[in-house]
């Protein structure tokens, strides 16, 4: 199937993205050369611990790099158009319309001074030029689609009156309001109870299928990833260290970091037991170790690891790993 990848343009193609913070001379390299692709209707996950650069990657795609940071190199092509060169006005028209984002904490991304209705209608009127009446009608439909039993009444509510799960559903309704081609969901269920998480994941899956939206899921929760993603990229200290179709990654993880993450996952089907934690913590991006960035925490590290950052090599079709234990491929 993937014999001739260049015949069709991927929905999203990220090439060697570098997002750096701080002074030019000694930059802090939060995202340090990340590449991935996303096809239409696909759900792709980026996983890793906090501080791995997953969220900065998501924000970079949206053109929302936090203050003090800059995109130092690389390309982000949405349907062939490079987003990095776009000016503010062009990006504003794409953001929300073709590309939208849901964040972990919906309270900080909803405007506390505007009602739910005003916030959704604003998007619809700005991007789709709907009339006020059309926007209200569409808002009601959207809120109904995300599972609110009395959507009309909700239009007049302020965000602080809603529970966490309700706010997250409002965010999803807003994010999907213009039927974007790509939805970036950054830890969309992390702050929610499992029962609400199940509602929200089900909703994302159903809506993505209905409106043909591709989803880039950013999370540290491997169980969620295994349930919803088609393909997974594992990030560590600003780099992709392994990438594989979901089933392959979970049944045959190759990178010691991926193996370590999987060993830490607790499961409701396993009795009281000893976990096998990864020792140590993620290095801060301003104090990266030499060579392989995982080497200081890696149980298999050997003399070669600190010499240079290993390349990302393809060990079999669609499965790439950045580790000297797997020197296969062409590197």
């Amino acid at each position, binding site marked *: 199937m993937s014999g001739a990848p260049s015949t069709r343009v991927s929905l999203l193609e990220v090439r060697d993205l570098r997002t750096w913070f701080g002074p030019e001379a000694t930059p802090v390299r939060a995202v340090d050369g990340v590449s991935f692709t996303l096809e239409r209707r696909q759900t792709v996950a980026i996983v890793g611990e906090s501080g791995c650069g997953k969220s900065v990657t998501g924000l970079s795609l949206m053109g929302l790099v936090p203050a003090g940071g800059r995109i130092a190199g690389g390309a982000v092509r949405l349907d062939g158009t490079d987003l990095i060169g776009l000016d503010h006005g062009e990006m504003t028209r794409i953001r929300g319309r073709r590309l939208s984002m849901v964040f972990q904490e919906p309270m900080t991304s909803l405007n506390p001074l505007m009602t739910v209705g005003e916030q959704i209608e604003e998007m619809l009127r700005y991007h789709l030029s709907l009339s006020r009446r059309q926007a209200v009608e569409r808002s009601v439909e959207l809120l109904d689609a995300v599972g609110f039993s009395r959507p009309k009444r909700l239009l007049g509510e302020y965000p602080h009156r809603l529970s966490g799960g309700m706010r997250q559903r409002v965010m999803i309704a807003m994010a999907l309001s213009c039927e974007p081609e790509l939805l970036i969901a950054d830890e969309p269920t992390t702050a929610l*109870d499992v*029962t609400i998480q199940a509602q929200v994941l089900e909703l994302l899956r159903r809506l993505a299928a209905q409106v043909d939206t591709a989803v880039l899921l950013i999370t*540290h929760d491997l169980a969620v990833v*295994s*349930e919803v993603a088609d393909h997974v990229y594992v990030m560590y200290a600003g780099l992709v260290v392994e990438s594989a179709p979901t089933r392959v990654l979970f049944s045959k993880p190759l990178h010691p970091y991926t193996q370590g993450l999987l060993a830490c996952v*607790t499961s*409701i089907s396993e009795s*009281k037991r000893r*976990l096998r934690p*990864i020792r140590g913590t993620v290095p801060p991006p301003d104090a990266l170790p030499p060579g392989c960035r995982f080497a200081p925490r890696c149980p298999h590290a050997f003399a070669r690891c600190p010499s240079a950052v290993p390349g990302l090599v393809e060990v079999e079709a669609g499965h790439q790993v950045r580790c000297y234990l797997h020197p296969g491929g062409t590197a």
Partner: protein
Amino acid sequence: MSAPRLLEVSGLTKSFPVKTGLLQRTKGQVHAVTDVSFGLERGRTIGIVGESGSGKSTLAKCIVRLYPPTAGRISFRGEDIAFMTERRLRADVRARVQMIFQDPYSSLNPRHTLLSIVDEPLRVHHRLSAVERGYRVDTVLERVGLDPAFRRRRPHEFSGGQRQRIAIARALVLNPDLLVADEPVSALDVSIQAQIVTLMQDLQEELGLAYIFISHDLSVVRAIADTVIVLYLGRIMEVAPADRLFACFAHPYTEALLSAVPVVRTDDTKGPPRIILSGDQPDATDPPAGCVFHTRCPYARDRCRNEVPAVRSLPDQDEGHRLACHFPLTGQS
């Protein structure tokens, strides 16, 4: 007569008055915890699970007597501490019952050094020389995996996982019998979660500590608990030995909760069908009549709407499996 259990909670109830208006008239009551009973032995762990708003944290705070309960008994080492005076609590109980919280960022004083944070309980509870205290602090820091060389550092210089280690060190320095941990790993990354859970297991083995481990994450509770309590709207829905609860649950709420937990799959098998509960938890100021879960229960019948089910054991067995349901599920295991 055998020695009393370490902890025996019976009929514990806590409600908060809702006050409104200029005169702060009491308008109603939030029924945070209602009629909760359970026991805990030394060296064992009881897990308490439930959604946010289920009363988990209130229950914990009552047990360590940060809140005075409204009614019930809390027998600790054979003595009822539910209504004990603060003076007696300080003398007999406080040092033996310690608590750690979810957010190690807000539970540690940012202006204090590691040394003074861990040393403070010793200064309050014991008359020891500075040298002796220093020795005990160093011992406990090493025990929880913190380098005593960091003792002059302040909380912001540590990572989240290290801060939780500091909180554990501060709790352990008094050699408690019982540690109440309220969502201790929920704010941490998976790899750090595993480190903290493993540390708690090691400490339990070495020191014979008993834990009350509160979490909304059922899979973490499964890894550490001997017995699990499922709480909903402040009431016990089901309680059983962990292996039994996860395999042979009989309460519809437990079923829904477990079915909602995502599971890592390495093949294309599907788990049991997911039960998506509709709606949100009811308001605790006005809990539903009858069984509190009936408004979201897929199996609710008339009797559930009218009659409160008592917490009782299943007829065919007595392994400490109790539940509050008129129509327990059958057919598991």
